[in-house]
């Protein structure tokens, strides 16, 4: 059951129980026609507007009341984004060791996993990907690296804390690096769609020796 509450005078935060419920609330608010932008967290959805509006909370509650009792199927068609990966990351062997599998099995587990964009943030185009459905390894066993790197290269494909991600730009990072991609995660000059990923997308990683990205 989700609960909606004020998050300052220009935003309402809906706290949700499951990822499925979060995606449902996200779809309902995105499609509601309410003004503002809708962002997801791991177990929350935020609607933010530009100007304080005392009526916003009631508007959100009305949308939720209409939407939540419906079926649990997604309200909008989900996109699938395929990202070609060279599994040449410097933490590949260590992560395989920590998970008790071979490097080959780790690559198979990561590339056969279905991932969903739970949340965007940290940096432009950075998506937090959570595993969906069957898992060949228990991603949640992994924490973050004991010592973060000062600079993780753009295109690094990484895992940590039960999630996966691709670094859109060089930046500090504490995730374990499994590989790299030539896919462009964020292009500020592409004003129609600057980010390859958005909340709710399904992501598949495709092993390759030749880098590149394809979208299904």
């Amino acid at each position: 059951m989700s609960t909606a509450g004020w998050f300052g005078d220009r935003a309402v935060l809906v706290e949700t129980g499951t990822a499925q419920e979060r995606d449902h609330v996200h779809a309902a608010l995105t499609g509601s026609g309410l003004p503002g932008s809708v962002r997801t967290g791991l177990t929350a959805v935020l609607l933010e507007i530009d100007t304080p509006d005392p009526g916003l909370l009631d508007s959100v509650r009305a949308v939720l009341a209409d939407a939540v009792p419906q079926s649990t199927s997604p309200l909008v068609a989900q996109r699938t984004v395929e990202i070609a990966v060279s599994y040449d990351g410097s933490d590949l062997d260590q992560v395989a060791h920590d998970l008790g599998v071979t490097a080959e099995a780790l690559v198979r587990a990561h590339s056969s996993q279905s991932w969903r964009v739970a949340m965007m943030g940290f940096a432009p185009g950075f998506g937090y990907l959570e595993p969906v459905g069957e898992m060949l390894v228990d991603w949640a066993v992994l924490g973050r690296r004991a010592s973060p790197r000062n600079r993780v290269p753009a295109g690094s494909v990484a895992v940590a804390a039960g999630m996966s991600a691709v670094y859109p730009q060089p930046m500090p990072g504490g995730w374990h690096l499994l590989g790299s991609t030539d896919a462009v995660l964020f292009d500020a000059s592409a004003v129609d769609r600057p980010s390859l990923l958005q909340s709710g997308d399904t992501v598949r990683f495709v092993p390759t020796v030749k880098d590149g990205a394809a979208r299904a």
Partner: protein
Amino acid sequence: MPDVIAVVADPGLATVQDHGRRGWTTVGVPVSGAWHRGRHRACVRLVDGSDGSAIELLAGHLSLEFERSTTLAVVGPAQVQVDGRSAPIGASIDVVAGSVVSVTHTGAGPVYVTVAGWTPARVLGSASADTFSGLGGGPLARGDVLVGDPTGHPGAGAFVRDDEVDTASVRVMVREEGDWLSGPWHVTTSARSGTRLRGGRVDSLAAMPSMPVVVGAIQATPDAELVILGPDGGLTGGYPVVGVVVTADLDLISVRAPGDPVRFAAVTVEQAADAHRVRRQAGAVVRPDGLGQAGGVVPG
């Protein structure tokens, strides 16, 4: 071809900021933009033809060498000189080709400088520098050139009323009741990413699954620190958010320096919306011919 209108000779701690990069938070792009919205709004209103861009000076000194005649304005705690002679704050200032304008930060919070006809490059609709992701460019550096079309934007002697609204308390909408509301807190560090407070008590709260956050969100860290997120504070966070500063009082956070006290007062959303309306009515541009947007105050 655009003309060169000014060259930065001494950049201080300065970035380009405007109304912000709106519409892209859903894909992880912060809004950024002017930290003190009231001063910024006043500054760009003083210069006809402004596209909303301003230099935000947080400390130090800014020097501009003008190669074309134009009009500029400065709003905030600063001393301004044009070719060594004092010039007013909160008024449009005409400069001739060859002038050197120096702006020295002298008080609390951001100072804004805008130049008629200056049109900095935009990224995703905004020229604002995001000091975290690097979008919109980094801090101004010596030799940077401000380009644009400087012609035909006389300021006509407009000036702004003092828009500073400094209340004893920072108004907040509470999410977690507790001792934190009564303080007393004081600022330890201040930056566009966030303002850190110590001194008060805050209940130890469990870390949250990473969640969306907003400018003005008050995070409680495990070692009893409060962090009020600023315009470059990022879009997600894992610390519990105990409250959120109301929109009308966000500017107050930008003028709090290390050591300054901060007191909070809880308000309802109706009170917050009223406060926002009052705040937006302050700082109107006034013209000597009486055609300004608000009546009344004409400095002697």
